[in-house]
């Protein structure tokens, strides 16, 4: 089979994994080699769906012995199959990298023969890239659920990032849709990686120690293929960040690929919901919100109308208004319309004088939303006395821009 054909099959099958990040790396170029990675990551292109291309994202093979209901590669599907040779993957990665098409490789795979066999095959590719070709670019390897933790730990010496996908956010749903998997098969490699990453962090000062998954672990959950609500999902995510110390949790709006009576019938992937989940995720990672502040038993779904930060502000009028001259950074971050960058800017600039409305505008604060929550001489006082319902009504007349923020 031609390489182009294989690429079509194996890139096409890998594209549903939404993780694309090339960030968190810190590799320098080896002597006699090429390639490095920088903490910020680099996007190289964007496909028509608006997603970033930063890594060559492919499967080693789309042959699979399992039969997960939501997956294009399941064994019961009649679909063209292909398998890359180790050298083919290495060569594509290197030649793409040298032309600056990509930051590195994202390699996943269907399960061939057994999880261990598959994991070994992935390791061979990474090892060849690092050792034979002295490749210093980014490598993201999938940890195959059910593979021997020792093998997974070995893979970590070649990879910058590893991920084990949870895919389905609760164990009963997972078992129903993917009869060969359970949470144990996902959590056991994740745990092994976590412990090993920690060990290496502790020993950072020892010179000559090989890097171990320096960019950390991530995972992905499919949203909307099973009945779990948003509260369940962000609670799970919060635990993954806190207990498993993951770097990223990705949410992937369910796209119907197979017809299967265990799966819901939908006409459109739930992109709005996915977007709200990313916003909630950002609040947890960068804004100091906990999952139970964002949602609770009485409000288990994210509001389609207001972003989660605005929704929180509307439920907590007692927290506002905020005085930008005296409030803490953490408090300022909670004001709708003020992002991390503007909040830092405010805290930085106020040492030099009062922050006026014109400054906020220049900084890029969304005053349309922020103005109801601030004390400022330039803002009419009565705006701070509005009830949440009145604010809602005023916000509603603002024409909404229907663009999805890019969070990948």
């Amino acid at each position, binding site marked *: 089979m031609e390489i182009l054909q294989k690429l079509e099959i194996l*890139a*096409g099958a890998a594209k549903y994994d939404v993780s694309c990040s090339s960030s968190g790396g810190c590799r320098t170029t080896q002597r006699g080699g*090429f390639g490095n990675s920088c903490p*910020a990551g680099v996007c190289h292109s964007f496909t028509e*769906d608006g997603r970033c291309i930063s890594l060559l994202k492919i499967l080693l093979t789309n042959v699979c012995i399992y039969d997960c209901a939501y997956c294009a590669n399941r064994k019961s599907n009649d679909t063209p199959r292909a398998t890359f040779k180790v050298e083919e993957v290495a060569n594509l990665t290197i030649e793409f990298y040298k032309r600056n*098409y990509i930051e590195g490789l994202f390699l996943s795979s269907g399960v061939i023969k057994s999880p261990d066999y598959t994991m070994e095959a992935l390791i061979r590719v990474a090892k060849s890239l690092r050792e034979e070709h002295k490749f210093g670019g980014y490598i993201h390897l999938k940890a195959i659920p059910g593979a021997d933790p020792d093998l997974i730990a070995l893979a970590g010496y070649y990879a910058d990032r590893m991920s084990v996908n949870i895919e389905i956010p609760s164990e009963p749903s997972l078992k129903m849709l993917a009869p060969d998997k359970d949470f144990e098969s996902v959590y056991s490699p994740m745990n092994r990686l976590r412990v090993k990453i920690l060990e290496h962090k502790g020993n950072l000062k020892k010179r000559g120690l090989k890097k171990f998954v320096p960019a950390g672990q991530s995972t992905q959950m499919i949203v909307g293929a099973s009945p779990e609500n948003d509260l369940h999902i962000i609670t799970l995510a919060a635990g993954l960040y806190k207990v498993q110390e993951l770097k990223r949790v990705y949410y992937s709006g369910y796209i119907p690929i197979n017809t299967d009576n265990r799966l819901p019938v939908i006409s459109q992937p739930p992109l709005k919901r996915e977007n709200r989940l990313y916003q909630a995720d950002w609040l947890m990672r960068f804004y100091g919100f906990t999952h139970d502040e964002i949602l609770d038993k009485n409000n288990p779904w994210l509001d389609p109308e207001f972003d989660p930060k605005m929704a929180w502000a509307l439920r907590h009028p007692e927290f506002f208004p905020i005085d930008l001259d005296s409030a803490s950074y953490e408090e300022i971050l909670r004001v709708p319309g003020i992002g991390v960058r503007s909040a830092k800017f405010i805290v930085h600039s106020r040492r*030099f004088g009062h922050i006026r409305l014109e400054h906020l505008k220049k900084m890029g604060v969304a005053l349309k939303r922020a103005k109801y929550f601030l004390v400022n001489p330039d803002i009419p006082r009565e705006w701070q006395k509005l009830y949440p319902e009145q604010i809602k009504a005023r916000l509603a007349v603002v024409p909404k821009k229907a663009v999805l923020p*890019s969070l990948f």
Partner: protein
Amino acid sequence: MTILTEQSFEGFLSAVFEAFRLKLPVQRIVAENIYSPQMFEDTHAITTNFENAARVWNGMQKNAGKNIAFMVQAAYLSELPEMEISLWEYVKGIFINPENAQNTLEPHTHAVFKTANKVKAESHNIKGFVRFQKAENDLMVAVIEPTYNVVNLLAEHFANRFPNMQWMIIDAKRGIGIHYDCREVYEICGDAAEIPQINDEFVALWKGYYQFANIKERKNPKLQRRCLPVKYWKHLTEMG
């Protein structure tokens, strides 16, 4: 008074040095080659002096730190005509009142920082958008047309990444570029832009990959254009 300089960062810093020393009443700073005389305008030409430029550069680093000096350079590279007077006021301020160098409530400072951040953002993005093509003698050549003059800011990144590869990045808009010969990076003039490209089999594979990675059900050209502005498409292999 309008100060005329050579069109380079060193030229600009030299002018700052002289104007400051002579206490000139600066109203405008313009590069000589793009200057068109206006009536009743008082002009003063300042020639580039590398020593003076270095003194200003080092003085900025000493008074306000490396980051600030880099902000000044980045803002200069925007080539925006209104930038030079803000930069003049700002750099002067660094020497008169260094504590105020971070005061972004001050309009000139804000203008300098904002522009510098845009230039830095573009230079970061371009690191991803550079596309090398194989030319003769294993030379890898890329052409870019950035909004700001960022080509020199790419040198270190690509020299570190490809230490054993000969490469060249040409800014076709400005007729300048950088060339790396596996030892050092040189600034070049882009007359060499006409480089015969060898038929590169990986172009087709990359174009293919670009299509295969797209998810039809998620089509969102608006988002795509926001992340990857159309002005960059011309030199992206996958778009051709």
